[in-house]
């Protein structure tokens, strides 16, 4: 189980959000939706220490980290258990597809190369890109890069994977290739926290949908409830707008 308690963040004294609580059980897919600029990316970035939170605790099974005060060592330990998938893929440009996966295994987890290679290859196979193992990111399409990005996150065997708008930089035709991969991960009980504007995906896959706006969680619930009967007027307005 993953517990996030009292997460708050300000930029230059301006609050982005405060008092965010979230709980994910193993295999949960929690989807965060909300208007642009409400801090969805910032929330994910605070969770893995790319931004320093003003306050907030994360409990990842047995590990408890105070995100406002954690030292570099415990942040690194946290990151090893938390995959991150970036909107713009952020594959290592100087590494091949395969090396993008082995890099963390050999350098961070200290797995010998002979063991890391088969792990990495099996992930490339799972995302259908074993034949691209020697390609550099610049030689891959956006959809292929994002599938490698997802494979890179998952090959480190994290307890949870954070996705920040994983399809919003993609061409409309390739969005499904990434969403289908995420659907299959959900079926395999991968714990995921996903920021996305893909409402159809949220409706099908999410175990919980969280609407973030005006500095906090306005409303959250099962997708069938939240999409059909949003309680708050802000949720109603937002959903009406994205449906058009």
């Amino acid at each position, binding site marked *: 189980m993953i517990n996030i308690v009292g997460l708050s963040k300000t930029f230059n004294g301006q609050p982005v959000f405060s008092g965010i609580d979230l709980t994910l059980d193993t295999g949960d897919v929690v989807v965060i939706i909300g208007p642009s600029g409400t801090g969805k990316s910032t929330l994910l970035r605070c969770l893995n220490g790319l931004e320093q939170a003003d306050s907030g605790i994360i409990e990842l099974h047995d590990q408890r980290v105070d995100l406002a005060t954690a030292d570099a060592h415990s942040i690194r*330990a946290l990151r090893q258990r938390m995959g991150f998938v970036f909107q713009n893929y952020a594959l290592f*440009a100087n590494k091949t597809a395969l090396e993008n996966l082995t890099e963390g295994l050999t350098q961070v987890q200290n797995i010998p190369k002979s063991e890391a290679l088969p792990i990495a290859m099996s992930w490339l196979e799972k995302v259908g890109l074993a034949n691209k193992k020697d390609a550099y990111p610049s030689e891959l399409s956006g959809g292929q890069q994002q599938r490698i990005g997802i494979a890179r*996150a998952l090959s480190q065997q994290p307890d949870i994977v954070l996705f920040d708008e994983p399809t919003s930089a993609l061409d409309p035709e390739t969005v499904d290739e990434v969403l289908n991969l995420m659907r299959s991960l959900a079926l395999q009980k991968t714990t995921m926290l996903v920021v996305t504007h893909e409402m159809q995906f949220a409706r099908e896959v999410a175990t919980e949908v969280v609407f973030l706006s005006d500095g906090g969680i306005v409303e959250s619930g099962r997708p069938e409830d939240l999409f059909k009967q949003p309680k708050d007027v802000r949720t109603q307005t937002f959903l009406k707008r994205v449906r058009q």
Partner: protein
Amino acid sequence: MLDWSYLGQLTPILIKYLPVTLGLTLVATVLSLALGLALALIKVFKLPIANQLATLYISFFRGTPLLVQLFLIYYGLPQIFPAMKAMTAYSAAILGLSLHFSAYMAESMRGAIKSVPSHQTEAALSIGMTLSQAMRRIILPQAGRAAVPALMNNFIDLLKSTSLAFTLGVTEIMAKAQQEASSSFNFFESFLAVALMYWLMVSALSWGQHHIEKRLNRGFA
């Protein structure tokens, strides 16, 4: 007009001093690369105090002529620090060239490091790398490629600037050409010969630079 036979005699004499020019170039290049990288990292990470000192250093060595810096080091510093009286003209030339070009190379490398998008660092950190792992394995290799064109230009400048070592009394190709010119009065041939030698070396380097860049960009954007 042009004394071809004199040019023919002079060339082998000048070539004998080529190792001095090349030695100055190579040693100063290695030193200024190392010092330049340290300065670039200090500036990229904005290390407190060191950052201000690095800025001052770079500003001084880019803001004053190399000739003045060489005189300051060779003729000036020993007056203040008597221990430096033992310094040879060759060492002083290397020191001056290294300090001067480290400032330029620092700027070339800093620009290259900054040109690597920040999401590359974030991705490295996100899988649990330390900042130093991220720098060594992800950022610096990419910055290295990006820095090649600017550093090659610095290198070519440095090679040509070794000619100023003659003002300290180092006998490299320029100094030899000067000596030969004043004893034979064949000023035009002497300086033409040395000019052609620099030109040839720089052309070879530019050709090499073109090929290195083409190779580095293969399979990689």
